[in-house]
């Protein structure tokens, strides 16, 4: 009986932490100060099962699988026009308030439209030159969840 209980608990833990609530460590500074380098969190896979990512939400973007993910913030959705002017974000020509961006930013990016079934994601730390920051539009299917906190 004890062994069965151990087996069931192990199976539950494997399924839960392996597929539903995946633990990860943050490596890199692109989401600072919201998510500091070295922090630990969980990717909740069911977050966007019945809803779509909204602007200002932080999402996990997958690569080939779920072992490596990018943590980014959604700033625009499909059909919207995104641009950066002197470090300020503009969506459809309107300036967007971003209280989570704490470091100085001087980015300039010409207007571009977010394609169908895509979202536009950017990190919170924009203190580096625009060429050195990994951001842009990504397919909706690559968003596999959101951090738990």
């Amino acid at each position: 009986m004890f062994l069965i209980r151990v087996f069931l608990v192990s199976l539950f833990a494997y399924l839960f932490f392996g597929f539903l609530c995946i633990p990860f460590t943050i490596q890199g500074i692109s989401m600072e100060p919201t998510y500091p380098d070295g922090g630990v969190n969980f990717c909740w896979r069911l977050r966007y099962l019945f809803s779509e990512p909204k602007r200002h939400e932080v999402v996990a973007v997958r690569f080939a699988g779920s072992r490596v993910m990018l943590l980014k913030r959604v700033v625009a959705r499909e059909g919207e026009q995104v641009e950066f002017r002197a470090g300020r974000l503009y969506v459809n020509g309107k300036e967007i308030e971003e209280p989570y961006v704490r470091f100085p930013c001087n980015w300039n990016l010409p207007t571009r439209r977010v394609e169908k079934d895509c979202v536009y994601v950017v990190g919170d730390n924009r203190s580096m030159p625009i060429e050195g920051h990994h951001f842009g539009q990504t397919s909706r299917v690559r968003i596999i969840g959101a951090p738990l906190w």
Partner: protein
Amino acid sequence: MVKIKYLLAGVLMVIIGIVLATIVFPSEEKRVKKRFHLLSEWVSKSPEEGSLTMLQKMKDIGTLFLEPCELKSPNESLSGNYTRQEISAYAGSARSHFSHLHLKLYDLHVAFPEKEVAKVNLTARLIGKSKAGERVDEIRELDCLLKKMDRKWFFSQIEVIEILKK
């Protein structure tokens, strides 16, 4: 009791047989993955690496590729066909800028769309430190095409997938 003993011995022998068969005759998927592990091992560089090891690794890297091997990248200047010598030379030149380098591969999905052709989708992460002390951490998703020749798998095409399009 004697019968159970024989039964257990039989089961044990079957298990050992299966394990040995998998080791001696690895599946094609394992053979393909082995090529990636070799690539990772030869691209990686430890701070203590000597010149002889470096030269050997440079030569070895080239042997993993078909001639020519096509590279497709969102960065147009890198796209094109490369010979083994060019790949070895580029790898050697790139490695020389780093004091240490580690190529990690994750989530390898192997498919066989045709006979003697393997398509592999994976995440590659290059971590290292340049000789100037700059930390490097680059992640890319890759689609690789490998072809089998003389019972060995060779990279014939590598495509860098653009995850985020500025």
